[in-house]
């Protein structure tokens, strides 16, 4: 029926004003929680928020927030694709790391010139992510293995397999770092210094993220495939009765989710590090889960969530400059996710009761007539 999980995963619509009011209330509530923690630690709560906003509105910070947010957004979309049909792809983390490694190696080999090399890197990353996720999809379809279990296992396997590939095949040791051959200069995604007041540029891969977000929204809400995916997520028996081949959907959705996961490492690889090394950021898949929850798997909601998370993460240093532990950032992030979930739940109950009242009123009038 109308389960809490369905509401959590955004498979239930929230109407009108509530959809906006709920997250705003949640953020206010999260700020209250954070203030309590700050005051308990003997730190000035108001000043802290002032520093956060001050830092976040610096041109340089804006660039950093957008760039990091791009990565978070891609991670959230990858997770959300599965969430929308009740598939818990916990393996986004392993999928993007393996995809980034292999595509970095391919890009470093520079078999194609310039822009073509960028395209090749992205295609390889999507393919690797998709294939790696397909393993979990295949296991679920053929053997009934829960994708939660298999993707967690595949994360561990991706770590070991990736390490073996890096150390034994793709990587070269340079001092204490071990890294793939850098992608040549002509295949870098340019940074656009469009924010006045800083020379730091916005990673133009943000365009890809926006396109992915639009595609996600359009495919889900406007296509047959998207309808089948959402139907399966809402009620598997009803989807089966309507003629949806659930097994096929599981496989395709896992592949799409993994393919999107393949993109997560691309802004970093093509716009910043140009190589995959042992310091390549890990754990973004899990950030993606939090952001997807925050945005209720909604394309715009996740974009806001991703920017909010990257804003908080880029604030970690400024807080330390003011002698506030960077852990306060984690507390805020946790508090926001929790409050958002609670706020949505309250808003939903309110809406459901209101709607049922409205319908039964009309029914009564109809019956009386």
């Amino acid at each position: 029926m109308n389960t809490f999980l369905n509401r959590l995963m955004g498979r239930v619509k929230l109407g009108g004003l509530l959809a906006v009011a709920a997250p705003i209330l949640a953020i206010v509530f999260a700020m209250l929680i954070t203030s309590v923690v700050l005051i308990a630690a003997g730190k000035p709560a108001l000043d802290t928020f002032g520093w956060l906003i001050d830092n976040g509105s610096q041109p340089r910070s804006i660039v950093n927030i957008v760039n990091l947010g791009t990565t978070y957004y891609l991670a959230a979309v990858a997770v959300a694709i599965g969430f929308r049909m009740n598939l818990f792809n916990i393996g986004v983390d392993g999928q993007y790391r393996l995809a980034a490694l292999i595509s970095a190696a391919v890009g470093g080999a520079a078999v194609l010139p310039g822009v073509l090399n960028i395209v090749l890197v992205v295609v390889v990353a999507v393919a690797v992510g998709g294939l790696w996720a397909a393993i979990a999809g295949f296991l679920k379809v053929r053997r009934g293995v829960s994708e939660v279990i298999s993707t967690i296992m595949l994360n561990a396997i991706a770590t070991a397999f990736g390490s073996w590939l890096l150390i034994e095949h793709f990587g070269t040791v340079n001092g204490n770092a071990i890294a793939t051959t850098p992608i040549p200069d002509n295949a870098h995604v340019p940074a656009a210094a469009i924010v006045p007041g800083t020379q730091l540029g916005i990673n133009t891969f943000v365009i890809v993220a926006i396109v992915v977000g639009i595609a996600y929204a359009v495919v889900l809400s406007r296509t047959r495939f998207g309808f089948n995916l959402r139907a399966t997520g809402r009620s598997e028996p009803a989807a089966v009765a309507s003629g949806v081949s659930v097994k096929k959907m599981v496989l395709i959705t896992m592949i799409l989710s993994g393919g999107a996961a393949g993109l997560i490492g691309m802004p970093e690889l093509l716009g910043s590090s140009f190589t995959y090394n042992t310091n390549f950021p890990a754990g973004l898949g899990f950030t993606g889960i939090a952001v997807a929850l925050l945005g209720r798997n909604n394309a715009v909601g996740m974009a806001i969530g991703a920017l909010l998370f990257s804003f908080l993460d880029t604030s970690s240093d400024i807080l330390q400059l003011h002698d506030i532990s960077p852990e306060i950032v984690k507390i805020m992030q946790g508090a926001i996710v929790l409050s958002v979930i609670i706020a949505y739940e309250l808003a939903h109950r309110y809406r459901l009761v209101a709607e049922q009242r409205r319908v039964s009123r009309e029914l009564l009038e109809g019956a009386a007539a």
Partner: protein
Amino acid sequence: MDHPRAPWSTVDITVCHQALRKEEAAIGTATVTQPAVELEGITKRFPGVVANRDITMSVAKGHIHAIVGENGAGKSTLMKILYGMQRPDEGDIRIDGKPVSFHTPSDAIAAGIGMVHQHFMLADNLTVLENVILGSEPTKGGVAIDFGSARAKIKEISDAYGLGVEPDTLVEDLGVGARQRVEILKVLYRGARILILDEPTAVLVPQEVDELFDNLRGLVREGLTILFISHKLDEVLKVADAITVIRRGTTVASVEPKSVTARQLAELMVGSELPSPETRESTVTEVVAIAVSGLTVLSADGRKLIDDVSFEIHKGEVLGIAGVEGNGQAELVEAIMGMRPSTGTVRVGLERRAESEEEGTSASEDRDHAGRPASATMSMHDISAWPTLRRREHGIGYIPEDRHRHGLLLEAPLWENRILGHQTQKPNVKGIWIDRKGARADTQRIVFTYDVRTPGIEVAADALSGGNQQKLIVGREMSGDPAVLIASHPTRGVDVGAQAAIWDHLRDARAKGLAVLLISADLDELIGLSDSLKVILRGRIVADVDPANVTPEQLGSAMTGAGEAQ
């Protein structure tokens, strides 16, 4: 309209529940003492629905009291109220003459009521002893579990009631019947004097049913009272001391098993206050629309749920399948829809709906076969290997038995529910895109034509009442002129006016050549709408009946296997 008399009802039984209250005391056969359970005026409302309305009944101590009624008649809500899982909005419950008010099942247990659920709640990897004491472990000195005393108590209960339960066996080594006895023992262990058994025979084979009944008789001999919920009438007549019939949420009759037949019970369960679904001018044609032959469906453990079922439905024909619920109707439908693996063949006519040129995945095959017409069955598509989607695309409409599970996306708006099951068909889609405008417009049409009571097409399906949900489903499945309609209980839970409208729609479509497989528990509906009738019992077609010449009584006894209607 409250208590109509069944037009065919010739036997003299108590139908009216006003009368019932007065006559209650006189009905018991055993020497009447204080009733163990008395319910009076129990009413329970859910948003938009009344699940129980003015339920009144009395259960004598030491009786096996059966409560019968169709699925959805309100039996389980009533039992949940009695077991403290839900609270009635109105009405009184008295146990042994004392008024009680249950807030939780613990209150009911404390009052001596125990519930044996249809689905066992046992941990396979624990022993019988551990399962029985789970949650009410006796302790020694407040800490250690006192297995010794628990074992002794279990042996004592088992011997007293002849349950034959061994405390130290692992539950996973037990058969279904033995597990059920463990469930019963679990309830007795907690001191229950009144046992509620919810559909206890559903999971048992016939010998196990007999053993269970022996056990139940043993229990009442020792002074316990049993409330036995079932819709299997032959079993009820075999074991019960008294029977209460529930229909549409209220008690409609209380009868003695000795003075009633299975068919009379069936009539009471189904009721007859419906407008006549009579359709007499035949529109049956020579063209076979769907042919099923040798269809067999196996359960996971290899039992035959459907056993070698064959039939043909012609264009313009309604074939009714009569049978007590749980005799394979659901499996038959799911096999025909391709949702459940089966052996045997299902063939449909070549001619699809009018708009057959639209996006057919099977277009090429159509032409191949159309090229060489042969005998009636030769010129049909064998769809046995087709997936559900392709069957639907070929013009098979489907009204599922369980609309919440199979028919609707409860959290989706109505117009999205219009698309469900027709994701590849106009006006819902244009190529790979959902045609939101087309789907919305067509949903408006259905809402208008089928009188779906809703504030709009953007509300979620779960905001509608069951009847209105059903009207939406019927309207959807009748859209696009299907060639074949598989209809399971098409008017269940629908108000009287809407029921007549649905029948009209079915009749009109039939006149235009629709072939309908109609499954219903409503004998009036079956007899009135069907051009031919088959009776299903334990997965087999056991009788062919001419609806023009059959009475509901004859049909009812055929359904219970009495075999009078041959």
